[in-house]
């Protein structure tokens, strides 16, 4: 079963997304900060996809993904940003890190579709 890492400093949203993904049948790791996310990756290995909030205290989502892209193990990790930042430049900054971008509030069906597609696409790539 594919495993998705969710990183969001808002526990309510973290809980919401966790329920949606678990109902969809994914294994879920939850992190309230970038630091926790890095620790979970270190402990559990690279997930199949990371769903990352942008605006967080400490290391933000863009910095986190930037860091992951520099490491061999996580370089190709599929990432979808899930953010309440909706300005053009915010979206462009996320996409520049080779990631999807879904704005908050989100439509559950659309978000789940994006996740399914991203994981499927990554599976098709020669690893």
């Amino acid at each position, binding site marked *: 079963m594919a495993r998705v890492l969710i990183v969001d400093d*808002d526990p*309510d*949203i973290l809980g*919401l*997304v966790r*329920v*949606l993904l678990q109902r969809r049948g994914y294994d879920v790791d939850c992190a309230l900060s970038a630091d926790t996310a890095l620790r979970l990756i270190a402990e559990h290995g690279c997930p199949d996809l990371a769903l990352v909030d942008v*605006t967080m205290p400490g290391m933000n989502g863009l910095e986190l993904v930037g860091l992951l892209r520099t490491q061999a193990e996580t370089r190709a990790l599929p990432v979808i940003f899930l953010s*309440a*930042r*909706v*300005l*053009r*430049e915010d979206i*462009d900054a996320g996409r520049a890190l080779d990631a999807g971008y879904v*704005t*908050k*509030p*989100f439509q*559950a069906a659309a978000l789940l579709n994006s996740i399914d597609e991203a994981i499927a696409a990554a599976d098709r790539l020669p690893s």
Partner: protein
Amino acid sequence: MSGQVVSPKSYPDVNPLVSLFRAVALAANEASTVEEAAQVAVREVCLYAGWDVGHLYLWDPESGELRPAPVWHMSDASKFEPFRSITMATRFPPGIGLPGRVAQAGKPVWSRDVTKDMNFPRARHGIDIGVRGGFALPILAKSEVVGVLEFYSVEAKDPDEPFLEVMGDVAKLIGWVVERTRAAAALAEQAERTHLVIEAAHDAFVSIDTDGVITAWNAQAEAVFGWSHSEVVGASLADTIIPAAIRDAHRAGLARFLATGEGRILNKRIEVSAIHKDGHEFPVELAVWPVRSGKDVAFHAFIHDITERKRTERELQLSEERLTHAQEVASIGSWEWDVAADVVRWSDQLYRNFGLRPDEFGASYEAFLQRVHPEDRELVDASVGVSLQTGRPFQFEHRIVMPDGTVRWSHSRGEVVVDDDGDPVRMFGTGQDVTDRKHTQELLRSAYERERRTVEKLRELDRAKARFLSSTSHELRTPLTSIIGYIDLMRESGKNLDGEEAEMLEIVDRNSRRLLALIEDLLTLSQIEAGSFRISYRSVDLSAVMRTVHQAVLPSITAREHDFVVNLPDDVGHVVGDEMQLERVLLNLVGNAIKFTPDRGKIALEVRHEEDAVVVSVFDTGVGIPSDDLPFVFDRFHRSSVAHEQAIPGTGLGLSISKSIVEQHGGDIEIQSREGVGTTVTVRLPGASTDLVRESA
């Protein structure tokens, strides 16, 4: 002339010697040449003393010889003809012959019998010359021998001393003639020279007598005054060249001189006006001096036309006045510094610039430096020093301190004059008061600075506003995400909710989404207002946009039981723009159609291609827009009266934002509506020709 000579025969009772002297003296007085006088003398002497031949030799200074003159007296012309012709052919250098000996000795020589005289060449021609006794005496002019008178007798004669003494006086009389004619010749020559000088003079020369009558008028006078010599000589000077205004003064001056011997204008140069023959008056310079000759006085004058000089002087004066005026207007003063003597000369304006009177300024370089503001003194001194060393000009701005302590700004320029060795001898330049300009510059600078700070502050405000909006939007969206998300979860898993509870949940959900739409619109609007609304330009697949819109609106369409028609061409095609924003526009337009169309209405979405454009139309059979509202539908916060009456929810921002988005895409939007019939909104977007595809970086 001989007719005037009084012969002794006319006075028979007079002593013959007296008669001789009278005749010779008369001749000497009246004769204009020595020959004329000598002619009388030789005749009178022969007659008086009974000598047969008298003749004149004249000294020729050029050849240094005595030359025979054609002055003869002979008692018998035919008898003495041989002697005469020999004599006329004979010249004597000093010492030779009887005349030569006289010329050498400067005194009379007597020969008792010339035929026996060893030094008498004329007796050596082998013929009888008919004369025996002879004597000769010199004609002296200022003790210089100018001629020799010789007398001969047919008989040998012994010297007669008293007679020789008388003859000496006769010769003296003849000598006077020579002296007189020489003096006269010298005088004539002198007069001629003077005349030539006067005629050739560059100045006009005019003479008048004591009556003011013109007696001399040279060629230059003719040129200056236009009158010819013959026209004015003999005429009154006053009536000729003296202007009416000063004629009386001229006459009074003449009269005063004659009465007192004093003249105010004499012997100095004066400037007066004169009149030309053509009537125009012009300035002349005049030098008059009186010349006395006996009782008579003549006035000579040199007169110089100074029209040109006066004009030049006037122009120079005007030009100086203009320069002074210009210096005043521009507050530019000039200066000059004799470096070696350390003497500084300032123009009046420079004194004004420094607020000083000439007696308050030491006129040295150091005195100038003391007037320079202490903080600028070093700069000024150094700049001048460099200029003196290099010979290059300087210019700088510095402050000066006025006597009352006021500080003013001066712009100083200077140049160096060097001698042949390249050493500086003189500096000259200008000083301009630029205080006002400095103040203006200062004002401008501070105004600019204020302006710049204001602009900076406004920019900062803009940035702060953008940050605020962005973070506000983010902060509002975050709780909404939870609200909307959990409502979804509840509905999905809410099988045990009763109908009333499900309906309430629906209301919460609907209002959450309204709140979200409102936040969305406000954020976009503020971006548009701040000019920071940006869309990305990509090639957008319109069919995908249509699919998204169709899916999004389908639930509402179904709920309202509308008949929804989508008309797409086979190839919907691409446009250049922002997919999300285009979706937003269409969602807004279709959303309006749904809201403003009563249930079970008809709504159509259509795409068609025109020449260079893709046209998207949204058509409905709704309530329509009252014509009064139509011009304002794109205004921000405008809501149609129908929306108010029927309490249709909305912010009044949707069409305004849609219009901005469409315009950012280079397109336009228009709306046609009839109240009670329906509304058609048409969006026209530029077709995706390749050069419009600007992939955003």
